């Protein structure tokens, strides 16, 4: 059952925000909707929750058509980016609010509230005023309050944006753990790819009011459907070449694909992620810039008029530097190669104006040795 959205359309002041969007989430699943700011993610949440009315389309939750229901009857609870804790109530009252609405008894409410506070690791803070809490604490109260409403569907709208990095990670993991315990169908809106990759069962890539691709994190990362989809999850490098007789030929050499794609012979491009490219002494790529990022070094090179982005782990970088006696310097020339064990090659038609280009792969094997 779970959530099933079909052909949802929503416009605002003559601008279409959601364009015939379809999505389905299994009951108990945790999915992320990943997209840049302005692609309509928050609008999607509001439409699901009933705060906005779509022009057309279907929203089914556990088989029930909720599109006709007012927001308070849908069981779809949003945790907003700005948390929206009620300033005129203390922590306890905030959490009790949805329970009061369901007309639970005083004792039951108190009991549940204590439970929830323990669940979010804030025991005993019931009497505090909202403004006395830290950002992380407020976040957890907001979660507890959402849970108190016994949601059928939990919607998190960029819920961790206001936090610093460590806290963000912690909260993300926290929500995931909560999900494992409670198994509430959850939809997380985010623009941070690491979060989406780390926390979700499946990721929906959203752009321009549509879902571009919807799959598990691994498959989306390694088998993106298009250049646009690929760009969501990290940087990409493209190598032009030719597909002939089951192998891809380019300046990187020959890459055998395995059977199945012979029909697509012709010019195409190979997509490689920064970690899939290695660097060696002597070649025709010029190092333009390098930057240290703690766990890795990011290198920007130029080759045949194209810019390449590489990512070397710090230990690799140090090993390479040691082998040549000094660190790679800007302006020097190096060779590049495709690393072993880079997974199935991702091929796209050559880039043309306005054509995003659908990706086709060497025979895709689901879950095969990534």
């Amino acid at each position, binding site marked *: 059952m779970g959530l099933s959205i079909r052909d949802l359309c929503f416009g605002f002041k003559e601008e279409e925000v959601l364009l015939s969007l379809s999505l389905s989430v299994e009951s108990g699943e945790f999915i992320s909707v990943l997209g840049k700011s302005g692609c309509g993610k928050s609008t999607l949440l509001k439409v699901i929750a009933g*705060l906005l009315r779509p022009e057309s389309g279907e929203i089914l939750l556990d088989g029930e058509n909720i599109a006709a229901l007012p927001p308070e009857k849908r069981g779809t609870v949003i945790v907003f980016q700005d948390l*929206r804790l009620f300033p005129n109530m203390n922590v306890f009252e905030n959490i009790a609010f949805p329970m009061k609405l369901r007309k639970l008894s005083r004792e039951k409410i108190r009991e549940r509230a204590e439970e929830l506070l323990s669940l979010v690791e804030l025991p005993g803070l019931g009497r505090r005023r909202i403004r006395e809490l830290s950002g992380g604490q407020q976040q957890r109260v907001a979660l507890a309050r959402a849970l108190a*409403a016994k949601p059928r569907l939990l919607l998190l709208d960029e819920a961790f944006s206001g936090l610093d990095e460590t806290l963000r990670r912690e909260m993300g993991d926290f929500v995931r753990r909560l999900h494992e315990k409670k198994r509430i169908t959850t939809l997380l809106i985010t623009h941070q790819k690491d979060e989406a990759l780390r926390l979700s069962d499946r990721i929906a890539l959203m752009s321009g009011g549509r879902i571009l691709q919807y799959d598990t994190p691994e498959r989306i990362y390694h088998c993106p459907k298009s250049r646009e989809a690929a760009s969501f999850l990290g940087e990409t490098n493209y190598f032009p070449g030719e597909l002939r007789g089951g192998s891809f030929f380019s300046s990187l050499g020959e890459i055998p694909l395995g059977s199945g794609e012979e029909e697509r012979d012709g010019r195409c491009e190979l997509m490689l992620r920064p970690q899939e490219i290695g660097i060696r002494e002597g070649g025709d790529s010029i190092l333009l810039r390098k930057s240290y990022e703690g766990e890795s070094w990011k290198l920007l090179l130029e080759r045949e008029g194209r810019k390449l982005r590489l990512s070397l782990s710090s230990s690799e970088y140090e090993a390479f530097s040691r082998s040549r006696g000094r660190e790679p310097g800007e302006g020097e020339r190096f060779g590049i190669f495709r690393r072993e064990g880079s997974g199935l090659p991702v091929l796209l038609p050559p880039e043309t104006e306005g054509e995003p280009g659908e990706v086709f792969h060497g025979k895709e094997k689901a879950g095969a040795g990534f």
Partner: protein
Amino acid sequence: MRKAFLILLSLLILLPLFSLFFWVFTERWPWPNILPKDFSERALKSTIARAGELGNVFFTSILLSLLASFFSVLIAVLSGRALAFYDFPGKRLISSLMLLPFLVPSTVFSMGAQILFLKTALYSSIPGVLLCHILYSLPYANILLNEGTRALGEGLEEQARVLGAGPVRAFFSVSLPNLFPLLLSAFTMAYVISISQYFMTLLIGGGRVKTFSVVMVPYLQSGERNFAALYALIFLLVTTLVFFIFEGIARACTGGRRAELFSDY
């Protein structure tokens, strides 16, 4: 230097108010004495003797102004919502219309309104006067509450809705308590405007609706400064008392317990 200025200012404000006490008991204060020559309690006694009648005037005035304030604030809250959260044709026009009473002196309106009310039951009646008081207190409430509603936004209500509250419940549990300080300011302003009305009450009330101001002016115009001072003093004391009560209620409620009060909806 700044503080000295402000202290001087405070004195300029407070001294005239204190001097009222003097004036109440003054019987004769011939030139050029600095202090009054004859004191008496005549004004005081005479007024006490008429306490019943005065009490009526009090009651009418306070009730009238409380009602005017209440309705002004209520209407301002509603129209504030309409303007802040909805888009509709004619929005700018209506916004301007709401502020029109600022531009038209109440004397001008009163004379026109009297014509309007003359043949109806509204003339020379409390409801008629009430309507006009509301009309002139409304713009003050409007400017305060329009801004305030817009500043508060719909966010909290949206959150309450998804947590299971219906639209009415969401408003009362979450928006209203947070609007409360502003409501109080608007209420106070509306009250002050209403209680100060003289000309309008006189004209629309046709002499039959007696408020403080209406009753006070004849004493001011005659030589009976002591009576005038006494009435003024009583007026100010009562008004200040009413305000303390307001503030007390406000403080008690915005201690966060407001949510409890409304949670029985």
